[in-house]
């Protein structure tokens, strides 16, 4: 509930209710931060630019690029950015 940027959930009696599923932007914050791992989200970013580019390069639209948020179109182009320092 705390991490959802679009108030998709409301607090129920002994659990959390999925009140506004249509507002969900599939960011996946709820799934990662659910202490009992009760949520599953196929997370990704709703960026047409990235998906079309991925499709044009013959790559998978779902996994190739992530972008979005408040600061501009896409962020998956440079070598450095796609390098996986933080990821193993």
């Amino acid at each position, binding site marked *: 509930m705390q991490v959802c940027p679009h108030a998709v959930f409301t607090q129920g009696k002994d659990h959390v209710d999925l009140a506004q599923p249509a507002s969900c932007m599939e960011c996946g*914050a709820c799934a990662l931060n659910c202490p009992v791992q009760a949520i599953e989200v196929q997370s990704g970013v709703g960026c047409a630019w990235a998906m079309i580019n991925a499709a044009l390069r013959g790559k998978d639209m779902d996994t190739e690029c992530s972008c979005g948020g408040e600061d501009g179109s896409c962020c998956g182009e440079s070598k450095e950015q796609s390098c996986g320092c933080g990821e193993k």
Partner: protein
Amino acid sequence: MDKNDNEGSSCSCTPDPQTRSCSCLADHPPVSEIMTTDSTITSANRLDHFLARWGWKRESHRVEPGLYRLGNPTQDTPVFASANYTLSFDALRSALAGMDAWILVLDTKGINVWCAAGKGTFGTEELVRRIGCTGLAGVVRHRKIIVPQLGAPGISWPEVMRRSKFLVEYGPVRAKDLPEYLKTHNATPAMRRVEFPLKDRLVLTPVEFVHTALAMIIVAALLWLLAGPVAALAAVSAVLGGTVLFPALLPYIPTKDFSTKGLVLGLIIALPFAVSLGTNPTLPGWANAAGAASALLIMPAVIAYFALNFTGCTTFTSRTGVKKEIFRYVPVMALMAGTGVVLAIALAISRLSGGI
């Protein structure tokens, strides 16, 4: 700030797979030096923000990752996490004006918190690593770190807790709400929600426009030579309509999805050009009709495409929604633009060959 170079290079990411692994969490973690910052936004900072907004050297608006001291923090002062994008870091440090704080800047490759979280660079791994790198556990007595809420798509707090013993506390979405938040450490529902007001939409338009400006100038120049100033103006209008007007009017255009919103706006923008191109008394009726039709077909298609591409800049589109939209509308746009271009070429050929 630059004293941190050694640590920075050994820890940050390099394309060479040999040197990629970071040894900060090894048995003897190299504790990096603490840097100092303040809450003042200088004119140099403002210039940097302006250039960032215009897409100038987009990846160079960076802050050195590491631990920063703001004011005179003690062992009990709160720790705030941020991205190493100047706009993110500056928003945080200026929001904390007059307060003491520790700021832990993660290496997000110069990308803002939300984008980086989506990509995973503002993530559990980097947070845990940076806590280790900076020796944060020896700097503060408490074990709590305030992370911006929009970092949550990259962070798993139970995982951070398990690996670093630090408790992640999700702060508000916007840094400017921090002073209010810190009074109670409870974010109001409004602080937790992402809005996308006119100001936030407009601030994105320069980058969108700059991306297409060169192509627009070339197309407009060609059209001026081949078809006259009205056609050139139509090209400029389509780009400005798609990259500036569309974001500004986003919530006011009827229909729900971005493509149809773009088609509606495009049709309105195309109308005067259709009238202008379709009422040339020196040309035969079919040529007028073809001119008007090409404007009505090409301009809405182009604007709808810009509109669809704006999905990535917004704060609320979902991957499945956008994917559906691509499959549904991109073929329509392509068909419209294709037909329009064929008509325009036919018209140009008959004019150039002296047919009309």
